[in-house]
């Protein structure tokens, strides 16, 4: 491959950069929300770390 400046190729990338970062943030925000809900729903239920023998 010859290294060269390919503006046409580059102009296809902003969409991927924008929606890519957005996609990663959305997925992780949903996981964030799920952790908050889980923590709220199961706080005080089940064994705590301190009750469980560590591996």
């Amino acid at each position: 491959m010859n290294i060269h400046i390919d503006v046409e190729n580059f102009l296809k990338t902003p969409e991927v950069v924008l929606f890519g970062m957005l996609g990663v943030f959305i997925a992780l925000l949903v996981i964030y929300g799920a952790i908050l809900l889980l923590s709220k729903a199961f706080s005080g239920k089940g064994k705590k770390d301190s009750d469980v023998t560590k591996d």
Partner: protein
Amino acid sequence: MADIFSNVLEIRWEMVLMWIIGGVLIWLAIAKDMEPTLLLPMGFGAILANLPTSGAVTQIINGNTEVGVLDVLFNAGIANELFPLLLFIGIGAMIDFGPLLSNPKMLLFGAAAQFGIFFTFALAALLGFDLKDAASIGIIGAADGPTSIFVANYFNSNYIGAIIVAAYSYMALVPIIQPPVIRLITTKKERLIRMPYEQKNVSTTVRILFPIITTAIVGILAPRSVALVGFLMFGNLLRECKVLRILSDSAQKELANLVTILLGITIASKMRYDLFVKVDTLIIILLGLVAFVFDTIGGVLFAKFLNLFSKKKINPMVGAAGISAFPMSSRVIHKMGLKEDPTNFLLMHAAGANVAGQIASVVAGGVMIALVEKLI
């Protein structure tokens, strides 16, 4: 006699260069303790694959194709993405998501620190790499070997050898790459920000449900990532369920070790001189560095951005731990924090961001596949 030594005449300077590269990888693994589990097998494999008419790789001799064992392993374990996925079971079993579950805000740094992937993708495209190869090069910034292999292989990139070498080398070089970048974009005052760690107990139920729910969420939002995240989370479930300790131990040790041995030496099948000794390889290695640098910048700047609105200030160095090089990056941040103030312990925050990076990098890989596939 001439027949016996005819192979000597087949030696080319590019092969000798690959032996030197193999030797350097072995030296880095042994003398510098840099990712030895992968660099050593890769280094040895690079020598093995570049001996003249090496029987370890497929050769066409007198018109007949002689299949080499490294290519057999590649087709059996990497071309179908099996080895990276199996390795992820082991990695999942090794990871304690406790610091993240205690402080889920750290997930955001995991997301921000994937910026280098997309930045490098755009830069590689500007330099003329086609979009498949640009995506494969960008994913070096996932700072996560299996994800890099998965994406590069998915796109059938010709540069898979260089990409894997760059990914694993830079993961080992995180302690050298990150500190100067962080110092460049933070002030001393910012680096001194204290973040008291509030120890929160995470119930076993949450620890068990987390891998299941995360798999479901990622599977729905970024289905291309579901195999990677699913195997990662399956390994974690083995660990957290507490009733499969033997399997969890096997995943962390025997499975991970066995796959790592095969993975390292198999990648060498793509380090043949005709595929590797090119200017492109050098460019890819430089682009890999760009990816790691901009991952770090993304994480740090996002932490600074959050500080504009947050009452509880975040030490921006923690943002840099959002890259997936686990646990190297969190240790680097912890040490940097201690260097600035010996009583400032950032380890648990950084560990939270670091394991978040592990999830985020896999998601980024899936998102990248989905978006780039639409363009090609």
